[in-house]
């Protein structure tokens, strides 16, 4: 399963990349599992795990952490939004 992952704002500044294409190992099937797996790739990726208030979106819609991830998805992780 392959997905495109985007990071925004302060989280993007804290990570090595703004976006990446990743192939997921078997067992990574939800947004929470994806976040944990991405964040376990070394110290540079730790903010994905240690930041407490991250939000996520799947295919450009805000979603819950138990949302299933599917092949070809565009997913995004970011801090709470501050527009308006």
């Amino acid at each position: 399963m392959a997905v495109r992952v985007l990071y925004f704002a302060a989280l993007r500044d804290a990570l090595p990349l703004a976006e990446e294409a990743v192939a997921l190992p078997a067992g990574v099937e939800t947004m929470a599992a994806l976040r944990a797996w991405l964040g376990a790739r070394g110290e540079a990726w730790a903010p994905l795990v240690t930041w407490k208030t991250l939000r996520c979106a799947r295919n450009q819609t805000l979603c819950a952490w138990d949302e299933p991830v599917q092949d070809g998805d565009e997913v995004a992780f970011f801090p709470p939004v501050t527009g308006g």
Partner: protein
Amino acid sequence: MWTVRVQVEDFDAGAEGERLQRVSPEVGAVVSFVGTVRGGEVRAMTLEHYPGMTEKSLEALVEEARRRWFLTAVTVIHRVGRLMPGERIVFVGVASRHRADAFAACEFLIDRLKTEAPFWKKEETEGVARWVEARESDEKRARRW
């Protein structure tokens, strides 16, 4: 009638309100909100967004407002890029037959936009740039709806 725009350029709040007022002879009320960059310590503010999701989330909010209130037209404009104190950031305008629906829908749209639409502000003060933190008071207002 149902307009969502994300743009770098400024907008003319007066002209947008005027257009909403004239969109249909049924319109009896126009309520609009304009958000601006507060001055003081802040020297400039940069607004980042998530292209694609931004438009989609604003359109979804307009759809929800249309389901909940009797509306004739809605315009939401949000600027991105670097803005100076006093500059306009956002316009939310609602036209309806009666004021109650226009007031409620306008407040709903700006409250929910602030917690759901993927925009992030970075403030520049004297020599320092920092990302603005989300406020619990904004979450609280959005949850009322």
